């Protein structure tokens, strides 16, 4: 594909992400922080997010498999996840974290399990989408163009 088309595709893709509620303004903020001094800022932050979230999700799964569930610890971890997701603008994930926290407070195991599944699901989606977006951006860069804001 040629450069302009790629760029247009990227823009559309991004817009759809916003429209569908996967991302919110925070992501825009992140993008505005990226400049010549910090060219890979967004990628770095998002990668960090992925690492962090995967770790947290694993721990949460493990915690829920225990006989005696440590809700407090789980709550703290969900809080972390919420913080991270809100920092990059992963809107849906953040929302789910809030619900998850409520279940933790209520010490509702069923609810927690269900929520965890949902979070994992959403996380999976957003990860895929962001990775696709980054691929597009890379393609544009490779084609010698600049990433449209």
């Amino acid at each position, binding site marked *: 594909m040629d450069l302009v088309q790629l760029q247009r595709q990227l823009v559309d893709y991004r817009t759809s992400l916003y429209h569908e509620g996967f991302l919110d303004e925070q992501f825009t903020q*992140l993008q505005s*922080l990226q400049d010549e001094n910090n060219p890979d800022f967004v990628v770095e932050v998002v990668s960090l997010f992925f690492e*962090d979230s995967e770790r947290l999700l694993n721990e949460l799964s493990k915690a829920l498999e225990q006989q005696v569930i440590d809700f407090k610890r789980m*709550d703290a971890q969900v*809080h972390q996840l919420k*913080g991270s997701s809100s*920092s990059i603008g992963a809107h849906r994930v953040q929302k789910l974290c809030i619900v998850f926290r409520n279940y933790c407070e209520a010490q509702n195991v069923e609810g927690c399990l269900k929520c965890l599944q949902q979070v994992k699901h959403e996380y999976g989606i957003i990860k895929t989408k962001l990775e696709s977006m980054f691929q597009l951006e890379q393609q544009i860069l490779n084609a010698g163009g600049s990433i449209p804001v």
Partner: protein
Amino acid sequence: MDSCNCIEPQWPPDDLLMKYQYISDFFIALAYFSIPLELIYFVKKSAVFPYRWVLVQFGAFIVLCGATHLINLWTFTMHTRTVAMVMTTAKVFTAVVSCATALMLVHIIPDLLSVKTRELFLKNKAAELDREMGLIRTQEETGRHVRMLTHEIRSTLDRHTILKTTLVELGRTLALEECALWMPTRTGLELQLSYTLRQQNPVGYTVPIHLPVINQVFSSSHAVKISPKCPVARIRPAGKYMPGEVVAVRVPLLHLSNFQINDWPELSTKRYALMVLMLPSDSARQWHAHELELVEVVADQVAVALSHAAILEESMRARDLLMEQNVALDLARREAETAIRARNDFLAVMNHEMRTPMHAIIALSSLLQETELTPEQRLMVETILKSSNLLSTLINDVLDLSRLEDGSLQLDLGTFNLFAVFREVLNLIKPIASVKKLHVSLNLAPDLPEYAIGDEKRLMQTILNVVGNAVKFSKEGSISITAFVAKSELLRDSQTPEFFPVPSDNHFYLRVQVKDSGVGISPQDIPKLFTKFAQTQSTATRNSGGSGLGLAICKRFVNLMEGHIWIESEGLGKGCTAIFMVKLGIPERLNEPKLPFMPKVPTNHGPTAFPGLKVLVMDENGVSRMVTKGLLVHLGCDVTMVSSREECLRVVSHEHKVVFMDVCVPGMDGYEVAIRINEKFTKRHERPIIVALTGNTDKVTKENCMRVGMDGIILKPVSLDKMRSVLSDLLEHRVLFEAI
């Protein structure tokens, strides 16, 4: 018979004669001998007798005479020579002594005589002294009487007792027949008999005050003897005999007003009473000097006692009056309080009760307007809405006014945009004005500050009311609104000579003039404009509606804002100008740390707004830490990141100007770091500014942050612009309290 040398009697001795001579001689001798004995006896008895020597002589003389006579006894008959010798000797001695005595007596008798004179003299003297003693005793007595009388008089503060006692005591002391007191009447032209000693009920005799006798008495401070025939002394039935002497004395009646603070009372304009004292008739008594003195002293004492009594009476009366007034005032106050309470209760109830149905009516009518309606129905609903709006405004006005009246209304001061207020008013008024084809123009002076401190809502209400009135009462033409800062030359207005506003550094006076070309107001109606509920009589204004409260409320608001409002008009049909001035504060940003975060007019900072600013970011969450770092790096800061509390405390130094601390994590640990940092840096200017980054700004979080001494809170997620403004504010004032 022998011839003897003795002489022979010439005649023959007569025995009888001889016998008698014999006996007589014997007795003489006896007497002569007994006299000295008596003398000796009595002299011995009396202690003093200066003339002993004379007595001895005299005694000797007598003894010798006696002896002679005794010896004579023997010479009647024949006697011997011895007898004759003895006789001769005796006679010789007797002669000597008697001559001596005679000579002595020449000296003595004058002395003796003088003794007698002296004795008489002394006796006279003694008699005189006795008399004087008697007099002194009498005076002493009277002195004692006076003291007792004075004591009696002064021991009572009751007028009548004083006077009665005086008369009684005087009467007793001086043994008077009658004693009377004449007091001046209210008119001061007559003297009225007020008290007498003997007559129980003095009939109200009056005597004109300007009699010469009375004048004489009044002009002298002494007791004056007057004639018993003068009118003041003629109060008893004419005696059959000589009436006793009469004395009159003046009794000054001292008034409160006569007493100056540092002065003795002046005796210039005086009222006097007259005391008349009469000695008993048919006695030869006279007025003695000491008695007159007594009378004068008593008169003075009486005057003093009377004045005391008068003062006491006055003060008691004043006190009673005060007590009555106090009681009445207390009652009035309680009644007023009850009334106020009742009014407040009424208002509180009415406030709620009235607003609720009004609200229902207005809300439902507006809803009704939105539905499908026929034109007549629409008209009806519009009328309902308009009327209920009017009613609602009226209720609000009344409630506001009553709060204003009690002074319980307080201005809600705050910083607001002045220009925005005027624009808002203009927007609200434009539709109505355009319907009436009125042209509205707004003129804001260039030196008018954009922001001011004051009660925005009420200022708007005032401006709106004034402009609204201008629009309401103009059928055509234009309305012009001008606003400017009142300068001191313009502050003195002929309309308001009592209003001298003084601008200061923190305040300015906003002057707004609203000029319209409407019906105008006649000069006599102008004062009534600001009174509640008073309407001008012209039918035009009546038809235009208005409850009459609007201007009264505006005036109250303007007064609360320490200003003044007035209306000028040249007369009916010539339009009018409403002018008001209010005091507004000039916002000083440094004075208001608690101000909610104000969006400043955005200036375009470049990305490196804070070059080299050293900040410390503490966040346990890796992702958000990175995001915050990215933000700050984008703004040009030199960011140090720490991920734990201990690390934060270790790393923080006075070079870091700001510390961003994530306090999202449930638990109190984040706050502890702030406390530790505060402890670490004792001097305020060395301490970095501590800002909390948190996901929730509920009250608890805010309180906790404030308590540990944090300088601000930022709610995550933070946008670039927000971070930029936060940092610039923080660095400018060192304090921000909340940024949402």
